[in-house]
């Protein structure tokens, strides 16, 4: 009996079964095994932060020498640009004041008023080639929980929190094929659709728009934003622009290729939106 237990095939089978059980448990209920992730992620986090920032400063240090000429000409262009922008800015400040007055008058509820915004740095990315997940330097210690939306400022949707460890969390980007976000085609006569990642498109940094209503005429250049349905993402965050509409065999199978407003390869900082009102986001009843 002891000989059987000590034999290599037996050990291999036993370990395989053990790992399959682990796989099953972690697949079923993520929350119970997150402490396991902390074993690696907590000691890893300061090192990843350090290595990433060393890499970034090396990169900028190296480019310093190469870019000197470029910088000089760019500086000239920028100076004139600054003057132009200052002028435009003054006008905009006036417009903003006007806008605020009108808003208050209409008593418009600010869509992001229910959220507090937490800044985070990207410190690491997925070890493999298949997924588009990255690690940020805040976690449950800072109050981050799974499914919190992640944005850059208010102009672009990045994704949502996939797992939250004690000091760091993983963000699933919208171009990952596991990701899906309820979207709205923002033009007159626009409708609801779903933005999903696609294995072929994500290489280019694009994602696809599925389930486009039949009566909606999607065109290149249409803006896509979150619809607020599904309860994860708040309404009105820009996702991207339609750059191509593809039709397969029938009209029912059409989908659109979307170029996100963000360049995911250039991201360094993001913001996590934390719901502070306690209210579920609009539309979550439909879940």
């Amino acid at each position, binding site marked *: 009996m002891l000989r059987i237990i000590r034999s290599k095939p037996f050990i291999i089978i036993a370990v395989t079964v053990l790992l399959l059980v682990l796989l099953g448990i972690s697949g079923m209920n993520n929350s119970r095994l997150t402490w396991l992730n902390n074993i690696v992620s907590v000691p890893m986090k300061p090192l990843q932060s350090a290595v990433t920032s060393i890499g970034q400063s090396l990169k900028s240090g190296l480019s310093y020498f190469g870019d000197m000429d470029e910088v000089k000409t760019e500086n000239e262009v920028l100076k004139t640009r600054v003057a132009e922008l200052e002028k435009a800015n003054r006008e905009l400040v006036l417009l903003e004041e006007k806008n605020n007055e009108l808003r208050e008058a209409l008593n418009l509820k600010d869509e992001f008023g229910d959220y507090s915004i937490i800044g985070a740095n990207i410190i690491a990315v997925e070890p493999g080639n298949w997924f588009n997940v990255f690690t940020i330097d805040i976690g449950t210690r800072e109050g981050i929980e799974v499914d919190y939306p992640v944005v850059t400022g208010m102009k672009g949707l990045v994704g949502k929190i996939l797992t939250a460890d004690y000091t760091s969390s993983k963000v699933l980007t919208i171009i990952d*094929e596991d990701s899906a976000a309820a979207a709205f085609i923002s033009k007159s006569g626009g409708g609801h659709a779903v933005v999903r990642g696609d294995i072929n498109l994500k290489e280019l940094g694009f994602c696809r728009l599925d389930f486009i209503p039949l009566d909606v005429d999607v065109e290149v250049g249409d803006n896509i934003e979150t619809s607020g349905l599904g309860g994860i993402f708040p309404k009105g965050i820009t996702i991207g622009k339609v750059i191509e509409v593809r039709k397969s065999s029938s009209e029912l199978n059409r989908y659109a290729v979307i170029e996100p407003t963000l360049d995911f390869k250039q991201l360094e900082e993001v913001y996590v939106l934390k719901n502070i009102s306690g209210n579920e986001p609009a539309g979550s009843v439909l879940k």
Partner: protein
Amino acid sequence: MKIRVIIYTVSIFIILLFQTTWLEHIRIMGVKPNLILVLVILSALINGYTEGAVVGAFSGLALDLVSGRTIGLYALLGLYAGLLAGYASRKLYKENYLVMLFFVFFTSVLYESAVYLLTSIGSEIHLLQAIALKAFPEAVYNSAVALIFYFIMIRINRRLQGEIKLARKY
């Protein structure tokens, strides 16, 4: 034995650190090498399938914990990648670079195809496309990295074995 465990643990930790940070900047054709997999295959080639399987399972587990998806997937695949590479090569002359490259390449393609198939259960599967776009370029990249790893690992291994012989002598 103890030294071996320490060397592997430290190497896995360092490799994971770079795998998740700097490697992002040296992507070629959209892929980066899988350094952990290279380590597993080479340990199996150099020291046999038992060591390959153990290193595969433990480094896979570490990879699982870092990637933050279901725990156990990379551990299982690492276990079998180590077993396969070690077992298939057990009768071949190991210190031959061509044999080594052959095993790194094919185990990488198999491993990444398995990752793709197992993670896309329940959705559309385009295996050939996935192999052409990801697994194949990655396998080429892994083979190139393996040349450097192999050079280092062979030397560490010789030194460790030398110490064992010395210990026996006295």
